[in-house]
Structures are given as C-alpha cells and as structure tokens.
C-alpha cells in the first residue's frame, strides 16, 4: 500500500468510540444478553425497543436514564410484553414514560404518541391471535389508545402552524396505521374459539376503524385552543358537509404539491419495507399468496407512478393518501403474518388498488381470495355512505 493510503488509514484510526460510549454500548449489549423473552405462549412478539425510535433525541442519554431507572435486562425484556404479562407495566409506565418525557417539540410528541398508539394496536393483535382478549384488556387498550390518539391530534394541530407538510405526513401515516391494524385485528379474531375474545376483538376492531375514518374526514383536528378564524371556518364546514375531503381546504397549491410529494415518499418507503417483509416470508407463504401480495405491491407502485405523471388535478392528495393507506395495510398485514405464524392473514383485504387483476382467476383458491377482496371493498363503500 502506498504511503497516501497508509496516512489515510492512520488518520481514520482516530475515529473510534470514546470510553464512555463503549462502556454504554457494552452495557446495552449485556442487558440484551441477559433478557429472556416472555415464555407464555408460542407466539413471540419480537421486541423492537421503543428506544431506537426516539427521533433524533440524545439517545445515549435515554439509554442511561432507562438503565438507571430500571436496571438492565428488565427494561429490555419488557419491550415484548403484552397486557397480562408481568412486565407490561414496565413497558408502558416506565419505558414509554421516559421516551415521552424526552419528546419536547410538538413534532416529536406527535410521532412518539403515534408510535405508542400503534404499540397498543400491536398488543391487541397479539391478544386476538392468542384468543385471550378479555373485556378488561380490551377496555384498557382502548383507553390508552384514545389517550395517545388525543395527544397526536393536538400535537399535529400545533405542528400544522409551522410545518403543514410534516403535519400532513404524520396524520396520513397515523390514519393509515389505525385502519390497517383494525383490519388485522378483525382478521385475527375471525376464527377464534374463545367467544369472549372474539367478541371483544371485533368490537375493538370496529372502534378503531371508526376512529380511522373520523380522522380521515376531519378538517383540522379538534384542538381546544384553536384561535385562527380559518381553522374555525373549516371546522364548521366539515361538520356540515361530511363528504368534504381534507384536500379542499388547504391553503396554497404549492403546499399541496409538497404534501403530496412527502406522502409519496412515505408511501414508497412503506412499500420497500413491505417488500422486505415479503422476502423474509417467501419460504413460508404459498406461491399464490406470495404472488398475489407481490401484485398488490406493484399495483400500488403503479398508481403512485401514474399520479406522479398526471399533470395537475385537485384530487392528487386524496389519491396519494389512499395509496399510502394501501401500502400501510399491506405492510401491516405482512408484519402481522411474520409474528403470528399459525394464522393465515394474507393476502391483505380492502386494497383499493387491486385494479384489473381481480378479473383473472386460474384456481378456486384465487377465486375465493378475489371474492373476499371484493366483499371487503363493498363493506368499505357501504360503511362510508352510511356514516354522516
């Protein structure tokens, strides 16, 4: 190697972990090694530690805090807990509290609480899958979910003032997630043997679906301190005309275009994540299901591309939101399928972008799947017109 490269390498050797950073990392690794996942049932909810989710906040500080408060493996192991588990209180009352305390800006509050709300829905999925959703668990999850959703709505209203694009993105993601998880819970509880669990899960799924639709229809979210007359105007407007979509009342056209661009980016990223899950699942899924899901993903991509190419059109925002909705649904179903191996969840229902490939069908199973997809579509339509 020439001396240039030797110098370069030597220079780079300066870049390394500080003693403190190294010690911290060592401790996190140690606590992960000590942790044992909850042994309760064959269904394992893979912990994705909330700590990795803190958007850009001093995560080193957060680690130190959590480890100091709870002590190592416990905090980490708690991440996989669901209601009824011994460590569940640590997950919600300690881990999440610490993370929430670190979220200072309205934007991080919105993001963090949206994530918490999603965790409640994922826990509900786990309970539905196991058939252990009791009335108490359902009520508890619903209440916590509502609390978080409330914070999301209020925080988004605050973000909207300074950064309407980020606000629109967070809102769109949240709505999509709520709808998607609601559908997963419904699917998981379908063939349940425990009557109570099935009933409670179905109820929860319905409540969530309602919430998702309300979010989508609302103009600006209901915020107690909204003073701007524009917001008041549009809030009244939406109360009178429930079919009013969000797109219509946003101010300038450039903001709209930027919002569409941002949501498009989110949708594309979501599709890539979905594809990653699909590859991971490929061996386990049948060829038909795999192909069907792949087609769903391509269709959504196709729609996004078409939207991109269309010039003008005031309905772009609505269309990209629907595309995001579909993308999030597919991804959420794939995530759930990875976790709950004994259930058959795919292909995801209610994907609007199914387009023309519903027409062709080679086998009976594909025919059944198509019927299910079409039925889901009908339900959605009827539901929409029914609610005013």
């Amino acid at each position, binding site marked *: *190697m*020439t*001396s*240039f*490269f*030797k*110098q*370069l*390498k*030597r*220079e*780079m*050797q300066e*870049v*390394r*972990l500080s003693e403190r*950073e*190294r010690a911290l*990392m*060592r401790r*996190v*690794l140690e606590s*992960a*090694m000590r942790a044992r996942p909850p042994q309760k049932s064959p269904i394992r909810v893979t912990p994705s530690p909330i700590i*990795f989710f803190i958007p*850009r906040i*001093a*995560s*080193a500080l957060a680690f130190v805090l959590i480890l100091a408060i709870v002590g190592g493996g416990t905090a980490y192991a708690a991440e996989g807990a669901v209601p009824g588990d011994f460590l569940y209180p640590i997950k919600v009352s300690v881990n999440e509290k610490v993370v929430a305390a670190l979220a200072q800006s309205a934007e991080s509050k919105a993001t963090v609480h949206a994530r918490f709300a999603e965790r409640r829905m994922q826990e509900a999925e786990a309970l539905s899958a196991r058939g252990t959703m009791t009335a108490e668990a359902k009520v508890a999850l619903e209440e916590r979910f509502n609390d978080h959703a409330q914070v999301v709505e209020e925080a988004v209203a605050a973000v909207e003032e300074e950064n309407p694009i980020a606000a629109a993105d967070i809102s769109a993601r949240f709505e999509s997630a709520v709808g998607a998880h609601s559908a997963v819970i419904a699917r998981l509880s379908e063939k349940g043997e425990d009557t109570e669990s099935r009933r409670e899960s179905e109820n929860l799924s319905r409540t969530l679906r309602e919430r998702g639709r309300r979010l989508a229809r609302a103009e600006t979210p209901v915020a107690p301190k909204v003073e701007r007359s524009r917001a008041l105007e549009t809030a009244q407007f939406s109360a009178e005309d429930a079919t009013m979509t969000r797109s219509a009342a946003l101010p300038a056209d450039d903001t709209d275009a930027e919002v569409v661009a941002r949501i498009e*980016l989110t949708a594309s*990223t979501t599709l*890539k994540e979905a594809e990653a899950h699909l590859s991971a699942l490929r061996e386990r899924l049948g060829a038909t299901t795999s192909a069907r899901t792949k087609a769903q993903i391509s269709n959504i991509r196709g729609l996004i591309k078409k939207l991109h190419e269309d010039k003008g059109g005031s309905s772009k925002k609505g269309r990209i939101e629907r595309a995001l909705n579909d993308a999030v649904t597919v991804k959420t179903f794939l995530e759930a399928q990875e976790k709950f191996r004994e259930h058959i969840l795919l292909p995801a229902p209610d994907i609007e972008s199914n387009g023309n490939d519903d027409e062709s069908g080679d086998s009976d199973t594909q025919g059944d799947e198509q019927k299910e997809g079409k039925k889901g579509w009908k339900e959605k339509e009827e539901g929409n017109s029914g609610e005013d």
Partner: protein
Amino acid sequence: MKDIQELFRNAFERHSDELFRHASLRLPDRDRALELTQECFLRAWQYAERGEEIREIRPFLFRTLRHLIIDEYRKAKSFSLDEMLEDDDGGQIESHLPRDYTNTLEAAFDRFDGARAVEAMRELPDLYREVLAMRYIDSLTISEIAALVEESENVVSVRLHRGLKKLRALLESE
C-alpha cells in the same frame, strides 16, 4: 449460551471500533453512526440467540451494518437513493484494462496528503465510498468486499477504480 455470550463479548471488544469507524465515514451524523453500530451488535445477538449459525463474525457484522446503512439512506429525507447509487454499468470498458492499472493509479496519490483525504472521502458518492473504505480502511480483500456487497469481483474492482479516479479529482480541485 455461556459460550455464545463470551463469543459476543469478544466480538464486541474486537470489532466495535472498526464498525463504528466504517459507519461514521458513511453517515453524516456521529450519533447515528453510534446507534447503528449498537443496532448491528444487537441484531447479531438476536440472530445467534434464535439458534442461527454465524460462521465468521467479522463479515457477518459488516454485512449487518451494511444493511442498516442502506436502510438509513432509504429513510433519509435529504439524501436520495440516486446519491447512493450512481451510473454503474459494471465496467464494460474498464474490464479490459490490465490488472496493474489500479496500482499505477494508487501510486499517483502519493503527492496528496492522506490526512486531508478523510474530508474528501466524505464527499464521494456513497457507492464508491463504501468500497474504498472497505479496501483501504477496513483492509478487506477484493473477494471479501465482493461477498459483502453481493457483486462480482470484477464489478468491485471497477468500482474501486472509478472511486479512486473520483477521489483524485476531488483532491486535485482543492
């Protein structure tokens, strides 16, 4: 279990610095590099704990880190995937060059200051930076790099070559 834990502890002590070094060269943010390095080890642990076999820990860690970096680029708002990728035709032209052309090119760098080159490295498109870092800083062989980035050795050589040319251009323009 005990053995695996010991193995991991050793792997951490031995490789954490170089993984962090690699991550911080490729990411704009030291904090993010820290997080990804940590995530890399955690994932490796989860993988081993599931009972999966890890034959050689160092390439495994580098591969895991690489995937995390790719995901990071996908998520980032200010970078686009285009910045990371560049027009890479697999080097139709360069594949006909004699082997030691790269050596000659390497030698041409001697008139530059290696210490200042770190800054220039950060300005390269990530596609080239990746292989240059792996070759000259992580000291991986061409075949190791090829296995990591999942391309042929030929593509790797070409990418290195183009990366060097770009690097030289950057240093010359200072």
